[in-house]
């Protein structure tokens, strides 16, 4: 494991690192605040000399970005596991929903952008790593409570906070701040790293959701199956289920469970219509 020193950061900045070293350094930059600050300073210095400095950059710009990113939902997508670092946003991917192709549609700051010279704050966001998960859902629901009991369990707020906020206002103030900050800075300098203009947040490589949680997907599938037909859009939740790729390997938990499922397969189908 390489030790990351100031020299490594400047080597990265000067484009002197290659392959694995470069990759490791970029990973490190994303994680390490102090290294990132150093990165920012190098860019700042470079731009001062290159006369590309904007009039003022908020000192905590990158912190605001991080905060805004943290406040935004991370996106789950389905695709092939973590795209290689040299996969650019416009890779044509494969004929299925590959993660890299999906990323092309989202304003994602990938490592190549970090490498570009930029003034001011370097934004530590990285390409989302995407993994496939399996669906394991099969639930027979037995309603447990009747209506009056249900009512007792929830508290209706007569007026929800922010209910009076006009609809047109932003849902996500941090992101507005973010883009305003970027706008100001970009007015003065054309080389700022573009801030994502969509409200689409970015799951970082280190985020726990980079690997999609199988439990979470159980929930998503159950939710879609549960409500199909009861909503205005009828079959649309079903469509969502088949529109998203499933992994090439299911995750049966234990050989025992798998075997029992396979064994019961032949008798299963005839029971289906009989189920309530």
């Amino acid at each position, binding site marked *: 494991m390489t030790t990351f020193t100031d020299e490594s950061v400047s080597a990265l900045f000067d484009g002197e690192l290659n392959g694995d070293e470069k990759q490791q350094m970029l990973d490190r930059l994303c994680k390490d605040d102090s290294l990132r600050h150093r990165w920012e300073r190098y860019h700042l210095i470079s731009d001062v000399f290159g006369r590309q400095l904007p009039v003022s950059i908020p000192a905590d710009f990158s912190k605001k970005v991080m905060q805004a990113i943290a406040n935004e939902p991370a996106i789950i997508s389905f695709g092939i596991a973590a795209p290689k670092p040299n996969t650019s946003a416009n890779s044509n991917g494969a004929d299925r*929903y590959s993660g890299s192709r999906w990323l092309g549609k989202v304003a994602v700051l990938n490592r190549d952008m970090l490498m570009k010279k930029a003034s001011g704050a370097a934004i530590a966001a990285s390409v989302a790593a995407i993994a496939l998960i399996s669906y394991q859902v099969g639930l*027979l629901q037995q*309603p447990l409570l009747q209506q009056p009991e249900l009512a007792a369990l929830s508290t209706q707020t007569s007026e929800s906070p922010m209910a009076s906020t006009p609809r047109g206002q932003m849902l996500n103030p941090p992101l507005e701040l973010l883009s305003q900050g970027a706008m100001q800075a970009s007015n003065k300098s054309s080389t700022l790293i573009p801030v994502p203009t969509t409200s689409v947040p970015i799951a970082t490589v280190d985020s726990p959701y980079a690997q999609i949680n199988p439990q979470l997907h159980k929930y998503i599938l159950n939710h879609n199956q*549960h409500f199909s037909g009861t909503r205005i859009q*009828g079959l649309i939740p079903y469509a969502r289920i088949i*529109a998203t790729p499933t992994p090439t390997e299911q995750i049966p938990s234990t050989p025992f469970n798998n075997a029992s499922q396979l064994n019961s397969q032949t008798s299963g189908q005839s029971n289906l219509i009989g189920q309530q």
Partner: protein
Amino acid sequence: MIRGGVVFSIMLASAQVGADSASALSYLKQMGLALQTLNYHGTIVYSHEGEVGSMQVIHQSGPGGEIERLVHLSGEPREIIRTNDVVTCYLPDSRSVLVANRNLNGHMLAKLSADYELFSNVYTFTVAGEGRIAGKRARLISVEPKDQYRYGYRLWLGVDAALLLKSELIGPRGNVLEQFMFAQVEIVDFIPDAMLKPAMSGESFAWYRDKSPDTGGAAIQLAHWGVSQLPVGFKLTEYTRQHMPNTDVSTDHLVISDGLAFISVYIEPIKPGSQPIVGPLRMGALNIHGALLGDFQVTVVGEVPPTTVKMIAESIVAPKIDVPKLDAPKISAPKMGGGG
């Protein structure tokens, strides 16, 4: 005098609004009926998150009930066949078949009827115009949320037969989050059986189906989670305890709805070694928020904005246990199940 005139015209205006909403709702009701009772087949194009795909839809309504089949046309030939309330998903890319029962509560639109009052403080229904979809004349119904806790819809219904021809899920800034549209559709008298059979038998696939619910122990019946804060118009409409496959653990499933938007809350004991779900997540039109509450994992999922799922996830309250604590450990002790 002037005041009377103003009041009168306001009344007229609101009566007009009421009439508009009533007709919008009645069109939606017709649509619900059409979706359930007509025989039709066609091709749907959908887009979300910038991805575009297509699928074939076949629907038959007969004396035995409904059969519906959706076949994914772009990429893997996944398909879903629903026979009344049993849903079978064929997933060739994972070589699996999932069988589940869908919600038994019937078509929501049947309940719309004169329930405008139910929705009026949270949604505005209007007949917003006409268009042409799949070569057919279509009527645009706009469903606009009154606050930022829910999404809106734009629905195009056929004028001649009130089939849903196009549907858009609209986000808070008027952006389209998800879109489904018939590129071509035919209403027919008769659907041949062959069109309703799956393209694959699934014989060599792994089948996953409903497990029987966990009925063990009186203790299971007793503890019910609640929600302390809900946005206007939302209420808890369903509470089930389910048994997730491959584990011994029961999951509580709360359904929260405002009549149009549905949110699921899943609460289950944290499995040792499992990855916690915390914070906001999004998958297409679905927003998700996870939270850990003591020994439990709370996950809220719904086609609503992130603020809504977050509010709910953060206001789940622990169950009230009505019996001696003797039984309580049965619920909270994580079992060593299959550990998916």
